[in-house]
């Protein structure tokens, strides 16, 4: 066990966990940030996607000790009022069915659009194909990413 300091959503957290514990479980079990979801545990589905210094990463396979001083952003911290352009597009286009994968989808899309504000359709599909939606809301996810891109400056 080790006392670790983490910067998450612009807050400082301290937690006493084994260093190899995946960030996902520290967020969920130790810090009560349950917006980041557990889907597969092997970086296949993307439900656990968070940002590390703005980069989308799979928190289920990221040992918490590897975070270091990098800033963690989870769905709870993506925007203060849930009004990030990607979140707004998700609401407008009525993307969620069960909703379980959507935090991961949104985090993937937000990091992607930050780097590629004017993506092609093919780039959107390529990036978003890393995240599984078991309900099959893919058409709307694609549409929402496009819509958010058109509104992101």
């Amino acid at each position: 066990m080790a006392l670790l300091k983490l910067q998450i959503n612009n807050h400082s957290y301290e937690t006493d966990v084994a260093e190899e514990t995946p960030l996902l479980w520290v967020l969920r079990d130790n810090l009560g940030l349950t917006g980041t979801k557990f889907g597969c545990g092997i970086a296949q589905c993307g439900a656990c996607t968070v940002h590390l210094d703005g980069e989308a990463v799979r928190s289920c396979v990221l040992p918490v000790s590897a975070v270091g001083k990098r800033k963690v952003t989870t769905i709870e911290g993506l925007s203060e009022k849930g009004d990030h352009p990607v979140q707004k597009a998700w609401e407008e286009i009525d993307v969620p069915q069960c909703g379980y994968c959507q935090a991961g989808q949104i985090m993937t899309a937000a990091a992607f659009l930050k780097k590629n504000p004017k993506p092609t359709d093919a780039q959107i599909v390529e990036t978003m194909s890393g995240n599984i939606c078991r309900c099959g809301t893919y058409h709307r996810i694609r549409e929402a990413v496009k819509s958010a891109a058109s509104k992101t400056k």
Partner: protein
Amino acid sequence: MKTLEETSRRNFLKIAATAGGGLFLGFSWSGAAALPGVVTPESAAVGAVNFNSFLTIGADNIITIFSPNPEIGQGIKTAFPMIVAEELDADWKLVKTVQANLDTSKYERQVTGGSGAVPHSWERLRKAGATARYLLVEAAAKRWNVPSTEITTETGKVFHKASGKSATYGELAEDASKITVPKEIKLKDEKDFKLIGQSIRNVDNHNIITGKPLFGLDFYREGMLFALIQRPKAFGLKLKSVDSAETKKMPGIVDVVTFGNSVAVVGKSTWQVKKARELLKIEYEKEFDLESSADHNRIFKQLLDGGEAAVRRKNGDVETAFKNAAKIVTAEYQCPFLPHSPLEPMNFFAHVREDGVELVGPTQTPDRARTEAAKITGFPPEKVTVEITRQGGGFGRRLAADYSIEATHVSKLMKAPVKVVWTREDDMTGGTYRPAVRYRFEAALDKTGQLIGYKLRGVGMNAGNPTREDNFPSGAVDNLLIDSVDHKSPITTGPWRAPITNFLAYAEQSFLDEVAEAAGKDPIQFRLELLEKAKKAPAGEVKYDIDRMIAVIKLAAEKSNWGKKKGVHQGFSVYFSHRSYVAQVGEVIVEKGKPVLKNMIAAVDCGIVINKSGSLQQVRGGIVDGIGHAMYGNLTFKDGAPDQKNFNAFRLIRMNEIPEVDVHFVDNGIAPTGLGEPALPPAGAAAANAFYKATKKRLRNQPFIEEEAFKNIS
């Protein structure tokens, strides 16, 4: 306006003022016939318990509706209140839905399954809204001393145009609570619907996109322990001995407890428990045969050739028809086991206390969770509470209570609040799969290409009856025999979205394509001729609506421009399930030598569409689900253990693999029929038949990706 003759009073068993000066209306979800005699509002005042759901209108104009059915992504939490709000002329912005806990004294059919919630509750939800509206109108008439016939309602307000008076529902709510519920209530003419048929967004959207704790896995309780369970690694094994010494030494581990064939590692966090579980040393012994997929393939052939079959339907004289046939078409189709793979793995919270049991979690059948907990703990069911969380998908998996049973056992043994969590590997290897099945179809055609004889034998692994013997083409073929044989396997199975029909429709609609081809007929024309025959001279009972089926077939043909597109290979399929009718056309084009499913066109008759947005997505999602599993889904076994344990080996469809999906709803004004499942069954065959057109190779086994048509194609 139309009047329902049925006594509405029976459905409104409680009416009262709320503490805050609003209207409280308790209404029944059950049909009048299901109620124990007439209960008048007067005799069932405050304190009565025999009512079903609640609708409250607060002095603040907020209308709250408790939604009893579990929400797994089907959109019921949005659709139910829409129906009430329509008849109430409510302001949708002021409607709030609350997920109700399990309460069998208030609700019936508190289940998500069978695509049945809206068809079941349609009329009573409308009556609830209409009754509340009536009470508000009467209250206004009384207050203003004007005839109620002169009063109109619109978006949460009551108006008397002649005097220019108006009031909000909230202002009238307390007065309304003193009005007697009418014996009959008029419902709107469907033409006057304002909300029903609109696109209304999922009521939980904002909480979902901001990561609020909505799901079972998000539920935490102070002092709660986490449990991961080691179950036998193969179906057919039972527990012999457990050495948990190393596990117990690990940090955060509180105890290791055993029940049945399960070994539960209990500790302070999910990860600690997961790591410690890996150190268990468990010996198993064989209880049943450890089956492999090769065994299943052998058993299928044995049962198709010589199994003792249960006859499901028999019309005419099949043997003579086949003897006289000008042409006989025979084909076999097979589908593998499938896990449900809801993205939120199984989990459940239980706290077995001295005075009762508290259960919290994702379940499609909360009453089953309660009944099982009562059995395990010896408490009467009324001492067991079940809080239903939002659920990260269900697909039938959460109809089983195995994981809530586990949570109850562990909490009882630990005397502590416990959440049982399954990893993805636990979920994929833990059973209650869609059963594997194989079908043998035989069709007899006469010289003119008429289908004069039809035989279907279905054999399955714990599939029960893998046929739907009264579905099309039954009723359209004079000489028909449908039978089935079941193999009792140690591998556990259960309902999987559109049970049976999710594979039967693929197999049968693909086979009919083969028969149409052998008859030299267009596949759509072939089906239409069969339906005309069923209409004019039915062979035995016809248990589907021929006209509704014809209508979706024609709509799909029209919208897909059937047979008229150049360079596009089209495949057709139609199926009736869960009271609804769906026809689909798949479109394949060949890109660089590779057949690609580009489009799916769906014509859907589910009666009146409640929520356009939710319904559209429900159909698209059902088709993506159907195509995805038909293309890629495969769970195989070696010595009783699944070969695929996570999404790296079990392939789920992704965004780059979806076709475009074009959905058309039939507008026929029929009361709503099911929609959560019916779009899935026809999808596999529409795709398979289109791929056949492109490749000239039949796809007679799922997953398609392992079939000849896709060999040597990257």
